[in-house]
């Protein structure tokens, strides 16, 4: 094994990732990709689930260093459970976000993980909170996180509409994660989804071959009087080049 490959062997496992949570009238949809990478070169797990259930109706998505994120999440599950027993009722989403924030802020020099906390409670219904790296908490209608999220800011800004239905929300979330996975090399795999409403939480998994496909390129080429139509599905760049190379093959035939 040549020495230049050793970079990933000594790298920490990180969830270069794409995570997203969207609130709709009646619940929240939470989603993530499923790739864990080391050093940006090696995929250490292609089926990891970054959507963690911290309570019956509260979920949390992890991003950043996987070890840190898991440690914080496990500590938060324990603390939230205890808190809920003391109060004698299901915890508020804001409490869960607060507990995560306390860990992130207190140990902010040692930790390197960001979270999205989303769920449903009886006091304020569906809520989405972003708990970022240093411990800031912001409530939003939808939020994205992880390395893959930079590529979909434009898409989210353009396509989000308040007042979506559950189905529209699921499509919106799946599309966003797919677009991010197409561009970010440390996001990929399958799409994990969770939907939380008053009646409970439901998980979904969308395998790679069932993900939406975004663009088709049609190349019409006339050569020696024969018209050749090539239709290729995939993202715009991939399709364009597949179509171009097919054109070259046709020319040889």
């Amino acid at each position: 094994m040549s020495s230049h490959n050793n970079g990933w062997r000594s790298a920490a496992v990180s969830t270069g990732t794409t995570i997203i949570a969207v609130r709709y009238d009646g619940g929240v949809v939470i989603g993530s990709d499923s790739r864990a990478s080391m050093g940006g070169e090696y995929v250490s797990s292609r089926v990891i689930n970054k959507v963690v259930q911290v309570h019956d109706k509260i979920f949390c998505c992890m991003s950043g260093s996987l070890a840190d994120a898991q440690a914080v999440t496990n500590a938060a599950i324990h603390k939230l459970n205890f808190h809920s027993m003391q109060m004698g009722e299901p915890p508020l989403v804001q409490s869960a976000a607060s507990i995560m924030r306390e860990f992130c802020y207190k140990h902010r020099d040692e930790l390197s993980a960001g979270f999205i906390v989303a769920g449903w409670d009886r006091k304020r219904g569906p809520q989405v909170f972003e708990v970022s790296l240093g411990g800031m908490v912001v409530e939003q209608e939808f939020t994205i996180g992880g390395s893959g999220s930079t590529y979909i800011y434009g898409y989210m800004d353009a396509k989000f509409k308040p007042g979506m239905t559950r189905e529209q929300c699921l499509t919106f979330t799946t599309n966003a994660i797919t677009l991010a996975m197409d561009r970010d090399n440390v996001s990929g795999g399958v799409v994990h989804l969770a939907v939380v409403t008053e009646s409970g939480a439901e998980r979904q998994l969308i395998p790679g071959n069932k993900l939406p496909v975004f663009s088709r390129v049609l190349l019409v080429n006339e050569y020696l009087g024969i018209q050749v139509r090539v239709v290729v599905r995939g993202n715009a760049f991939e399709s364009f080049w597949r179509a171009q190379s097919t054109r070259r093959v046709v020319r040889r035939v």
Partner: protein
Amino acid sequence: MQAGSASDGGSKGLKLGTTIIAIEFDGGVVLGSDSRVSAGESVVNRVMNKLSPLHDKIYCALSGSAADAQTIAEIVNYQLDVHSIEIGRDPLVLSAATLVKNISYKYKEDLSAHLIVAGWDRREGGQVYATLNGLLTRQPFAVGGSGSFYIYGFVDAEYKPDMSKEECQGFVISTLSLAMSRDGSSGGVAYLVTIDDKGVEEKCILGSQLPTFHDP
């Protein structure tokens, strides 16, 4: 674009501060850019036109280090002039892109600029070439600059082949608007250049006229 000083770090560490996009339609191309030039945290020029002509119907979009990008554009402008006199007709867009690529590749360690070359010629119609880091590739559309990261998802989802000229212009304006609202190094006004067989049309869209999207 950055009019960066040496204290900003070597050319490898500088952030590319801009958003540029070029897209091809049947019969021409549309190029778009924002207008911000930053030096560290301050905006040095808020109305700079980053779409610079290389020839009558070939334009390039500048991003990265302002000095490097402008110099490459000027050199290629001169080389294309000489070339077109030698061949006695208008140069091909591929020729312009190759000249840009040659400079980018030869001096890739010293330069820190990405130019997107787009234009119209009689042989192949509208074409867009990306010349990042010395590679040369033809694409249906190309985006570049720091603002481009935020809009990859949007352009992947929204691009459809065979768009008309007006649809392409709308697409470019929406994309620029989204990128400018998310990227700290992009902003100001949007410049649009449309090139087809009939000629070149330059347009400037003021900030207040840009489309607005969901603002949390």
